C-alpha cells in the first residue's frame, strides 16, 4: 500500500516535470535569442562598407565565436562568457565605426574626459598580455596587437584634439581586452582561491 506522501508525489510528478521542461525550454530559447541577436549585430557590422584592418579581425573573431556558441549551448557559464566576448568584439567594431564620424562641437571638459578615459583604457590594455596568456586562443597575440594599435590611434587622436574619436578608439581597445578576459574565464581551470581558516 502506498502512503499518502508517496501517492501525492506520484500525482505531482508530471506537473513538476512539466515546469522543469518549460524552464529548460525558456533557457534554451534565451540562448537562441542571444545567438540571433549576435548574428544580426555581426551582419550589420559586416555590411558596412570599407571596414578597417582591426574591424575585419574583430568580425572574423566574432563569427568564429558564434560558431563555438553552437557547441556550448549546454554549458550555461561557457555560453555566457563566449557570447559576452563576441558582444565585446562587435561593440568594439561599432566604437571604431563611430570614431570615424565627425567630432561635432567641442564640449566643455571633453579633453579632461578623454584623458581620464584613456588612462582607464591604458590600464586595461596593459592587462591584455596576462589574459592573452590564459585565453587559449591561437591568435591571442593578434588581439593584443590590435588592442594596442587602437589605443595608440586613440592617443594620437587625443594629441590632435579629436577627443570624441580618442574616447571611441580607447573604448574599442578596452573592449578587445575585455573579450580576452571573458575568453580566459570561459576556459577557466584555475583552482578555487584559498579560504582563510
Amino acid at each position: 500500500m502506498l502512503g499518502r506522501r508517496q501517492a501525492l508525489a506520484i500525482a505531482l510528478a508530471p506537473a513538476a516535470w512539466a515546469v522543469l521542461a518549460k524552464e529548460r525550454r525558456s533557457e534554451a530559447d534565451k540562448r537562441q535569442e542571444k545567438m540571433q541577436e549576435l548574428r544580426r549585430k555581426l551582419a550589420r557590422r559586416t555590411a558596412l562598407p570599407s571596414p578597417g584592418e582591426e574591424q575585419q579581425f574583430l568580425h572574423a573573431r566574432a563569427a568564429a565565436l558564434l560558431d563555438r556558441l553552437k557547441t556550448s549551448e549546454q554549458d550555461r557559464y561557457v555560453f555566457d562568457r563566449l557570447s559576452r566576448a563576441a558582444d565585446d568584439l562587435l561593440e568594439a567594431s561599432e566604437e571604431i565605426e563611430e570614431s570615424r564620424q565627425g567630432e561635432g562641437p567641442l564640449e566643455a571638459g571633453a579633453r579632461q574626459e578623454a584623458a581620464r578615459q584613456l588612462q582607464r583604457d591604458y590600464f586595461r590594455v596593459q592587462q591584455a598580455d596576462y589574459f592573452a596568456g590564459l585565453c587559449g586562443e591561437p591568435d591571442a597575440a593578434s588581439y593584443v596587437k590590435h588592442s594596442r594599435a587602437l589605443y595608440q590611434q586613440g592617443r594620437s587622436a587625443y594629441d590632435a584634439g579629436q577627443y570624441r574619436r580618442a574616447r571611441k578608439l580607447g573604448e574599442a581597445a578596452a573592449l578587445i581586452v575585455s573579450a580576452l578576459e571573458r575568453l580566459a574565464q570561459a576556459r577557466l581551470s584555475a583552482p578555487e582561491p584559498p579560504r582563510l581558516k
Partner: protein
Amino acid sequence: MSLWPAPQSFRAQITIVCLASLAVIALAAILIRDVISRTESRLLAEARGQCAGACRELVRQHRERTAWGGDALSSQPLQAQDLSLRGLTVTVLRSYEGLEGGFYRPEARALIGHADGTGAARAPAARELELIASAARQAGASPVAVVGAWDRDLVVVAAAALEGGSGAAWALKRLSGARDPVGRRRQLWYGALALSAMLGVGALVSLWFALRSGVAQINAGLRRLEEDFGHRLPPIAGEFGEISRAINRMADRRTALEAELRRQDRLAALGKLVAGVAHEVRNPLNSVRLTLELLERRLRKGAVRGEEVGAAMREIDRLDGILARLLAFGRPAPAERRLQEISPLVRQAVGMVQEPAGRKGVRIGVESEQEGLAAEVDGAQIVQVLINLLLNAIEASPPGGLIRVRQSLESGRIALSVTDQGPGIPEAVRPHIFEAFFTTRPEGSGLGLAVSREIAAAHGGSLEFDPGGPGATFRLLLPARRSTP
C-alpha cells in the same frame, strides 16, 4: 713637544696600545650594529611605503574596474572574479618589484586576485594569511601596514578598504631568508668583524709576547754584559736582533779600544819603566861597584872584611827582588780562576798582614754588607792585591789607627774597599799612583799598585782610588756571580 706624557715603561705602552685596539674593535662592533639596525629600519620603512602605494593603486584600479561598463564583477562566479582581479593585480604590481597583492573578501574569508608583478605568485603561508586578514580588519580608506616577524624573516603587509565595504586590497613584501639583504649583510658584517677581531687580538697578543721576549733577552744580555764584558748577546730574530747585533758591535769596538788603550798605556809605561829600571838598578850597581872597589883595595892590603861582601850580597838580592817584580808586572802569572766566595780571601789577606799591623799598633776591621758574595777569580791574585792595599794602608796609618775593609754589592759588582786614617794622597800625586815605579816611599818599589791594577783588569774588574773622605780609600771592583751552594 709632546702634549701627552708618554709612559716610560715599555710594558705600559704596549698595554695602552692593546687597550686602544680593543676599544676600536668594540666601537666598530657598536657602529656596525647601529648601521645594521638603521638599514633594517630603512628597509622596513621602504617596504611599508611600497606596500601602501601598491594598496592605493589596487583600490583605485578596483574602483575603475567596478565602474567600467559590462557585467558587474560581483555577479560573476568567484573563480571568474579571481581571474579578472588577478589581471588587475598583475598589471598594478608590475611597478612594484618583489610585492604580492590582491583583494580580501571578509565575508568569505578568501583571498581573491592574488598575484605578483610576474603573475607567478606562490600561495601565501598560513601565518601570512593571518597577517593579511589582520591588516584587512584594521584597514581604512588609508592603507594600514602591519609587520610579522618569524625567526629572521620579516613580512610587511599593507591593506586599504575597498569602496562600498566589499573587502580590502592588500600588498605584501617578504624580507626573509636568503633573499633578505639585512640578514645576509648582518651575517657578513658580524663574520668579518669577528674574524678581524680574532686576527687583531691574536696579532696584539703575538706582538706583546714578541716584544716582551725581545726586551727580556736584551735586558738579560745587557745585565750579563755589565758583569762580564766578554759576554755577547745571543742572536735574536727581527728588529731586536738588529739591536742585539748593534750592542755586540759596540762591545767589540769598546773591547778593541780598551785593548788599544792598554797597549798604548803599556808602551808609555815601558818608557817610564826603562827609566825606573835604570834608576833602580843603577843605585845598587853603584853600591856594588863601590863595595867591590873597596874589596879590591882591601885585598891588595890583605885586610878583607866580611861585612863588605855581605853589603854587596844584599845589594845583589835587592837587584834580584826588583827584577822579580818587574817580571811579575810585565808577564803576570796565568790566572787560575774559579767561582768562590770573597769573604775567605779577605780574611786570608787580613791574617797575612796582622804581623806588620801589630808592630805599628794598627787595627784592621772587616765589614760586610752582604754575605755570600762570590766571584770567578784567582784567589791567590786577589789576596795579593788585598795585601798590597793593606800594606800601603798600614804604612800610611798613624800608630793605633784603624783600617776598614768593607765588602758590598754595587750594580752587580763586588766592591772591596780599604780605607785608612792616614793623611791621604795629595791631589798632585793621584794621577801617577798606578804608574809602575812611582812611589813616595824611599824603600818602595812603585810596583804594588801597578801590578794590582793589572790583576783587577785581568779579572774584568778595576782598581780605583776614591778621592772622597779623610784618609785614602782604594776600591777593588769585581764582577759578581751567584754564591756557590
